[in-house]
C-alpha cells in the first residue's frame, strides 16, 4: 500500500504536478499546515504579499502576462474576503486563477467560528466555479478539476475552500490522469457551416471591420487575426482587452473603439456593413447606446462562451468555438475558395478611402503645453524610450485610457488592465505578478495618484523580491476620470474628487528603500523617465500633470458611439 499523505502534502504535491512554480499568499491560522509544507518545498516560490487583494491581482498579472493559471493561497475569514475584488476582477476579464482559501474545521462550519466565513457562498457569482472540500479523499481530484476548469473553455477564477481538518487528515495520494465532467464540455471546434456563412458575408461586404477582443489573447489567436486582416485588407479595431491581439502599429489598425476609442474606429464601426467580432462581448463601453450601434452591419460573432453571443447585440452568424480554431477554419475556407488578393483589395478600396478621410480628420491628438506636463506626452515618451517592448500594467481611470490610446501594443499579453470590473489598485500588484514571471523584462505600472494608493502597501512586496518595476504616477491631484465626468456632465461640481492629503511619493519611495523621482515641468519628463528606466530597482516616478486634462475622444455614457466629444 502506498504511503499516506496529509491533505496539506496533497495540496502542495498537486501544485507541483500542475507546474506551479510561483504562488502569492498570506498565512493565517487556517492554512498553517499548508505553509508548513511550503517551508519544505523549495520548488514552489511563495511570494508573501502585504494584503490578500494584492495576492489575487499579482496572480492575475502572472496569468495575463504568461497565459498560465495564477495561484494564490490565503487564510479563512478576512483572508478569504480580501480576495473577493481580485477574484471578481479576474472573472470579468476571463483570467484563469486558482484561489486556495483556508477554512475552519468541517465540524465548526456553520458555527460562526473564529475567522469563519462562507467564502464559497460569497464568491459563487464571481467565480467560474468553486469547491468546498469536505473529505481528504476528494482533495487531489478537486484540485486537478479546479485547474482544469480555470484554464479550459472561457477561462476564469476557481476557488477551493480547504477546511483545516482536511489539510491534516491523511489518505493515499491518487492523481487523476484526466478530469472528465459530464456537465462541462466546452466547444472548441466551430461549426463548419457557420464559418462558411461568415465567409459568404465577407464576400458580399463592402465595408467590413474586424473587431478584436480579449478572447483573441486568451486563445492565442493573434497570428490568425493578423493573417486574416492582411489577406483580406480588413480594418481592425480592438477593445481594451483586445489591445495587443493585433499590432497597434500595423497600417490596418484603427486602435481602440468605444467610449474612449479613436474617432475613426468608432466611425468605421458605425458605418460598417459587416462586423467580425472575435472574442469580444459587446460591453456597454464598446457599444454605447445599443440601438444605435452599427445599425447597417451584419454581425458575425466568434466566442467560446455561448452566453456572450446575442447577449447585448443581435448576431447574424454566431460561431461558438475557440477563436484561434474558428479563425483557422475561416482562413481555410478563404484559401479553398482562392479568391485573388487583388479582388479583396478592390472590394474594400472605397471603404479604406473613407477610413483614411476619418483618420486624417481627427487623429488621436492632444494640445501640447509649455507649462504643464501633458499625460499623453508622458505615455508617448514612455513608448518611445521603451521601444514599445515593456509589459505595461495600468490602474483604472484616466491613466488607463491614456495608456490604451497612446502606448501602441504590438504583442499580446503586454497590457495588463482591469477592463471589465475596472478595479483601481489592480495595476501595481499585477505588475508584481508579471515581473515575477518575467524577471528579464521591463515591467511598468502606469498609475494615477488615486489608484496607486489603493494597493501601495505592495511596495514592500516588490522590495522583498527585488523587483525593478517602474511605477509611473500621472499625478493630477484629482480622481481624474470622475472629475472629468463632473466637469462635462455635472456643471463642474467637483464633489469628493480631491484628496486633501497626498503623500510625497518620492519620500514614500525612500521610506520603502525604493527610488523616488519627480517631474513637474515638460522638459523634465524625458530625463526623469530615462533615469527611471536605467535604475535597477523599484522606482516611483511622480509626474505632476496638467490637473484638468481630459481623456478624448469621449462618448458620453448611454449615447451613440458617433456622438463623440473630441478634443
Amino acid at each position: 500500500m502506498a504511503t499516506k499523505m496529509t491533505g496539506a502534502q496533497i495540496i502542495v504535491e498537486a501544485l507541483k504536478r500542475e507546474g506551479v512554480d510561483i504562488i502569492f499568499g498570506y498565512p493565517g491560522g487556517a492554512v498553517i499546515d499548508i505553509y508548513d509544507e511550503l517551508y519544505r518545498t523549495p520548488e514552489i516560490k511563495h511570494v508573501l504579499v502585504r494584503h490578500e487583494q494584492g495576492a489575487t491581482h499579482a496572480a492575475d498579472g502572472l496569468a495575463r502576462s504568461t497565459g498560465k493559471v495564477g495561484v494564490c493561497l490565503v487564510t479563512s475569514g478576512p483572508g478569504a474576503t480580501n480576495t473577493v475584488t481580485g477574484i471578481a476582477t479576474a472573472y470579468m476579464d476571463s483570467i484563469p486563477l486558482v484561489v486556495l482559501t483556508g477554512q475552519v474545521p468541517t465540524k465548526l462550519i456553520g458555527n460562526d467560528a473564529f475567522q469563519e466565513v462562507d467564502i464559497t457562498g460569497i464568491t459563487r457569482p464571481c467565480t467560474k466555479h468553486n469547491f468546498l472540500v469536505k473529505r481528504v479523499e476528494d482533495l487531489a481530484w478537486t484540485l486537478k478539476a479546479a485547474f482544469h476548469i480555470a484554464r479550459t473553455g472561457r477561462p476564469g477564477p476557481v476557488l477551493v475552500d480547504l477546511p483545516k481538518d482536511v489539510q491534516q487528515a491523511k489518505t493515499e495520494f491518487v492523481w487523476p490522469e484526466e478530469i472528465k465532467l459530464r456537465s462541462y464540455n466546452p466547444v472548441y471546434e466551430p461549426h463548419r457551416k457557420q464559418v462558411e456563412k461568415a465567409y459568404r458575408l465577407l464576400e458580399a461586404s463592402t465595408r467590413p471591420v474586424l473587431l478584436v477582443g480579449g478572447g483573441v489573447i486568451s486563445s492565442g489567436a493573434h497570428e490568425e487575426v493578423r493573417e486574416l486582416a492582411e489577406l483580406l485588407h480588413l480594418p481592425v479595431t480592438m477593445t481594451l482587452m483586445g489591445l495587443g491581439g493585433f499590432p497597434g502599429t500595423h497600417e490596418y489598425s484603427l486602435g481602440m473603439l468605444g467610449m474612449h476609442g479613436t474617432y475613426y474606429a468608432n466611425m468605421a464601426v458605425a458605418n460598417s456593413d459587416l462586423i467580425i467580432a472575435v472574442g469580444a462581448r459587446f460591453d456597454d463601453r464598446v457599444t454605447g447606446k445599443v440601438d444605435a450601434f452599427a445599425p447597417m452591419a451584419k454581425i458575425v460573432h466568434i466566442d467560446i462562451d455561448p452566453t456572450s453571443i446575442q447577449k447585448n447585440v443581435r448576431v447574424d452568424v454566431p460561431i461558438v468555438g475557440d477563436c484561434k480554431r474558428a479563425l483557422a477554419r475561416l482562413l481555410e475556407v478563404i484559401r479553398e475558395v482562392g479568391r485573388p488578393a487583388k479582388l479583396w483589395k478592390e472590394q474594400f478600396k472605397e471603404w479604406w478611402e473613407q477610413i483614411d478621410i476619418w483618420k486624417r480628420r481627427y487623429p488621436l491628438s492632444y494640445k501640447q503645453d509649455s507649462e504643464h506636463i501633458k499625460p499623453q506626452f508622458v505615455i508617448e515618451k514612455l513608448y518611445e524610450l521603451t521601444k514599445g517592448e515593456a509589459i505595461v500594467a495600468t490602474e483604472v481611470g484616466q491613466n488607463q485610457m491614456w495608456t490604451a490610446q497612446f502606448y501602441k501594443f504590438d504583442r499580446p499579453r503586454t497590457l495588463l488592465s482591469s477592463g471589465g470590473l475596472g478595479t483601481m489598485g489592480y495595476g501595481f500588484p499585477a505588475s508584481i505578478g508579471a515581473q515575477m514571471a518575467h524577471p528579464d523584462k521591463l515591467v511598468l505600472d502606469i498609475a494615477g495618484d488615486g489608484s496607486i494608493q489603493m494597493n501601495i502597501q505592495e511596495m514592500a512586496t516588490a522590495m522583498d523580491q527585488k523587483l525593478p518595476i517602474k511605477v509611473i504616477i500621472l499625478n493630477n491631484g484629482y480622481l481624474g476620470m470622475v472629475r472629468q465626468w463632473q466637469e462635462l456632465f455635472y456643471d463642474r461640481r467637483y464633489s469628493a474628487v480631491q484628496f486633501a492629503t497626498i503623500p510625497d511619493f518620492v519620500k514614500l519611495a525612500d521610506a520603502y528603500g525604493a527610488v523616488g523621482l519627480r517631474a513637474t515641468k515638460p522638459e523634465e519628463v524625458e530625463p526623469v523617465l530615462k533615469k527611471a528606466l536605467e535604475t535597477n530597482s523599484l522606482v516611483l516616478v511622480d509626474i505632476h500633470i496638467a490637473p484638468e486634462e481630459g481623456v478624448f475622444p469621449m462618448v458620453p455614457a448611454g449615447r451613440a458611439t458617433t456622438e463623440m466629444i473630441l478634443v
Partner: protein
Amino acid sequence: MEKKHTLSVLVENTPGALARIVGLFSGRGFNIDSLCVAETLDPTLSHLTLVTHGDDMIIEQIIKQLRRLIDVYKVVDVTEEGEFVEREMALIKVRAEKETRAEVLRMCDIFRCKVVDVSPKTYTVEVTGTESKIEAVIELLRPLGIKELVRTGLVAMRREKKTL
C-alpha cells in the same frame, strides 16, 4: 414579446448547485415564477422544473447562462419542444361547517380532488392538475373560506412522440 417558459434542468446533486441556479436568476435580474426540485432515478442528479418568463432574447440568455454553470448537465425548454404534460399539486384547507360541508365535497367531486384530512370545521383537499385547473378550484373554494393554501409549483415532462 414576453412569454411563459417551462424549463427542465438536470443538475449535479451536490451542495450549492441549487444556490448557483437561484443566484443566477437573482443576480442577473431574471424571474422565477415557480421552482420544483427533487432527486432523479440517478441519485447523483437532481431534476428542476423551473417556470420563468421573458422575451426571446432573455429566455435564450437564461438557458445559455444555466448551461454555463459547471454543475448543470442538461437544460430543455419544454415549452419550445412541442407537446408536454404539466402538473401541479395544491393542498387547500377550506372551512367546512354545517352549511358548506356538503358543498365542499361536491366541488371535490367535480374536480376530482381528494379529501386528505378532516376536522370538525375543515376539510383539507388535495388537487392535482394544470395550473389553470388549480386556479379554478381555488376560485370556487375561496367564497367558502380558504384557511390555508400550499402549492408545489409546476412539474413538466415532454410527451413521447406518437408516430406509428
